[in-house]
């Protein structure tokens, strides 16, 4: 009975599901408000939300404006705050730039003096010696320590080279994972489980850390997921992110519309946006492409290469005023070329 009923709701042949999906997402999209929400502890992480986030996802931007990762922990660390903090410290990205209070180059001697900030060192729980050792290893240069002051010998008096070393120092990652951003421990109030959120999306790097639950690591960066877990995971991530963004704005769109969009974006095996450089720009029909954007470019190219248009899509048929191939219009009388021989005259 239930099965019978459910089959009544199946999509009919010729139903323009893509158009329905586009309208179902587009209409509530007009009601979205520009609002941002904050994360306790990460002052920099104000997640992009609402329409800008939808646009970012649908256009398949290589990197989200505000990357965020959720790192769940293994059985031991997820119950104990100290263990969780230890894992977070391994992930938390600290760049030299944040630890430096003052940096002075001595071009005559070819040395660079760095005054470290005591406050920053304490908050990252590091000693000047640790910083010096790490820096020396990264640059393969000699680093002397005196109180809070580090002295780097560059072995050159060339102005440009000394300056290049300075830039390298400021950018070097002293602890944590490059591209992981600031990581802090959060607690799930319902289950009492500890987990980490970080303001970066380098989940490839985070996978190497001990104590994390590798089967649940997640980021809002679709391309990071695609690289690490493949196209099917990317498809799931696109749909999930779209739904999260819409839910946040209290807009309910049926998941199947979002899944269709995600399927269309990943059908080629890689993640493609829907715009000019993605799905719309790769349509087979010349007229459909010309009707979208860069009309003249497409028409001239088509003329130059002698392209043909099969006139099978919706756009090109509207353009010439013919019946569009959806619904009852999609029925055609057709025969395969190889079956032509079977036809008796």
């Amino acid at each position, binding site marked *: 009975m239930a099965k019978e009923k459910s089959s009544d709701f199946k999509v009919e042949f010729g139903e323009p599901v893509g158009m329905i999906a586009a309208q179902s997402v587009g209409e509530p999209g007009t009601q979205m408000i520009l609002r941002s929400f904050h994360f306790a502890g990460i002052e920099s992480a104000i997640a992009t939300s609402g329409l800008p986030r939808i646009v970012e996802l649908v256009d398949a931007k290589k990197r989200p404006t505000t990357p965020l990762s959720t790192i769940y922990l293994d059985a031991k660390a997820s119950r104990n705050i100290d263990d969780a903090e230890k894992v977070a410290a391994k992930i938390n990205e600290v760049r030299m730039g944040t630890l430096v209070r003052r940096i002075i180059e001595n071009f005559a001697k070819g040395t660079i003096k760095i005054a470290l900030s005591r406050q920053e060192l304490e908050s990252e729980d590091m000693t000047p010696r640790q910083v010096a050792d790490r820096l020396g290893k990264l640059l393969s240069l000699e680093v002397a320590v005196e109180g809070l002051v580090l002295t780097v010998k560059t072995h050159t008096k060339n102005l440009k080279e000394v300056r290049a070393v300075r830039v390298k120092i400021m950018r070097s990652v002293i602890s944590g994972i490059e591209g992981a951003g600031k990581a802090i421990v959060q607690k799930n109030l319902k289950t009492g489980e500890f987990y980490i959120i970080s303001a970066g999306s380098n989940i490839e790097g985070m996978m190497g850390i001990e104590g994390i639950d590798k089967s649940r690591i997640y980021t809002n960066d679709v391309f990071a997921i695609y690289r690490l877990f493949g*196209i*099917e995971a990317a498809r*799931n991530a696109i749909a999930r992110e779209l739904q999260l963004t819409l839910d946040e704005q209290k807009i309910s769109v049926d998941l*199947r519309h979002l899944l269709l969009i995600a399927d269309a974006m990943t059908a*080629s095996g890689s993640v493609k946006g829907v715009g000019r450089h993605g799905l719309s720009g790769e349509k087979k029909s010349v007229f459909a492409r010309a009707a979208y954007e860069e009309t003249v470019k497409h028409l001239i190219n088509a003329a130059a290469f002698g392209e043909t248009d099969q006139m099978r899509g919706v756009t090109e048929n509207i353009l010439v005023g013919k019946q569009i191939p959806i619904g009852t219009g999609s029925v055609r009388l057709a025969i395969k070329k190889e079956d032509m021989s079977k036809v008796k005259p």
Partner: protein
Amino acid sequence: MAYRSDHEIVPDHEILKLKEVNTLLDGSHITIDNLPKILESDPQCKKLGAKPGHVIKIHRSDNGHSYTYYRVVIEG
């Protein structure tokens, strides 16, 4: 040659046997080129050792609704 996924966001992938590919395509009006694609360099393809021309069966589950999806492996 089924392979169980080790991440909640990755569905199970499986290489389809040639016989199964034929029954799949015979029962429909599509050719193998019409199937959605998956790149040979895809992490899941590498785990399975799939080569271009193979069809991957994917055991999807959306909102508790389970179904299968197919992708053909292409170069890249």
